[in-house]
């Protein structure tokens, strides 16, 4: 990574963390639906960057959010899981040779972008809500929360990526 990349990722880490804990965790649309925009950090972390570093940073980001929302380690677990599995999802959405083709998220076709974002968001939310609720008697609540929060998150993430696509051309 270049120096500029490192700086941008540091700013993005703290910016998303603050935005998530001060604003987005308190939306409670319809009483329980919150978007989890901080996934943007994992989504647009340089595709060719160090995978171990991404796993570690995702863990830190998730754990910080857990500290703020008193939720044990649920965000950390979900984030570290999608960070680990991201190369697989990248291959699935953009083709096997995404690393050599220098794929950039703001240049790929919209369908592939939606597939990539949706898979990561849905996987993350399933793990998040399963671990947060942690009881089989509330399985409907888990599915309901996953569904509505995923829709909300995906829309918000797509919008923010479109909004900032020119400024952060580095990913």
């Amino acid at each position: 990574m270049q120096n500029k990349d490192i700086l941008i990722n540091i700013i993005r880490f703290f910016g998303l963390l603050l935005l998530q804990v001060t604003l987005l965790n308190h939306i409670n649309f319809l009483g329980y639906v919150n978007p989890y925009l901080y996934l943007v950090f994992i989504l647009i972390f340089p595709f060719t960057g160090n995978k171990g570093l991404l796993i570690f940073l995702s863990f830190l980001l998730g754990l910080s959010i857990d500290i703020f929302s008193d939720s044990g380690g649920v965000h950390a677990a979900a984030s570290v899981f999608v960070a680990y599995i991201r190369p697989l999802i990248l291959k699935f959405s953009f083709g096997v040779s995404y690393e050599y083709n220098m794929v950039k998220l703001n240049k790929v076709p919209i369908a592939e972008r939606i597939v990539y974002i949706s898979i990561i968001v849905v996987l993350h939310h399933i793990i998040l809500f399963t671990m947060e609720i942690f009881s089989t008697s509330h399985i409907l609540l888990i599915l309901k929360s996953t569904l509505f929060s995923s829709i909300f998150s995906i829309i918000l993430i797509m919008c923010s990526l479109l909004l900032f696509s020119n400024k952060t051309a580095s990913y």
Partner: protein
Amino acid sequence: MQQIIYFFIKNKNFLLFAFLFLIALILTIQSHSYHNSKVISSTNFFSGGIYSARSNVTSYFDLRKENNLLIEENTRLREQLATLKSNIPNPKFEGDILPVFNFTGARVINNNYSKIKNQLTLDKGLKDSLEVDMGVITSKGLVGIINKVSDNYARVQSILNTTSQINAKLKKSNHIGFLTWNTKDPNIVQLIEIPKLAPIAVGDTIVTSGNSSIFPKGILIGTVKDFTVGATDSFTVDVQLFNDMTSLNHVYVIKNLNLLEIENLEKTDDAE
């Protein structure tokens, strides 16, 4: 040996992932099995500081509502004072009546109500002599019990938490039950184990029972919204809370000044 090192290098990402995932899993399980999870909490100075800064901004938005609440409470207290004054026994009671409960005002800087184990953060802590197991109420009713304190902040286990069980009773007939929450609606909690004999009607008031040393007797909770006969031949009552749990700002923390004495007494009971 070389092969072991080679194995570690080859699988370093997986090992890192497995290690971090395990930590997160342990933290999660810990937060589900203990009432006060020790490690991860928003009462540290970093998250507490950010929440206070946020609350300093957002508290301006509902000043008008807060003022109205205070006026309502003042009116109620003045009415009670007037009634008490007119009922003072004659001749006058000699000496001071020792207070049993001490109230401290605090502000909610982080409020949750959409999860199934909800916790709140208050802007006061050990420095303001708050301790674990103190009750928290608003001018309108019950909020929860403190379960972790740091120097400047305290965390409250809300009544909107599936692990909370608070003693409560019907004001009219003194029948006692437990308050639980079925996670469906943040303004409705369930009162269980009310005996089937109890005369109960929609609109009845529910108050704290005073059986535990945490809350004084008669703190308002809510009114009966609906009731059904549960599995064990007892009533399960839906209680509409007086509090709006989705917008809490100023709360009172209750300290029982006789707590030490009560605990010592209960200990000696066990020993014998």
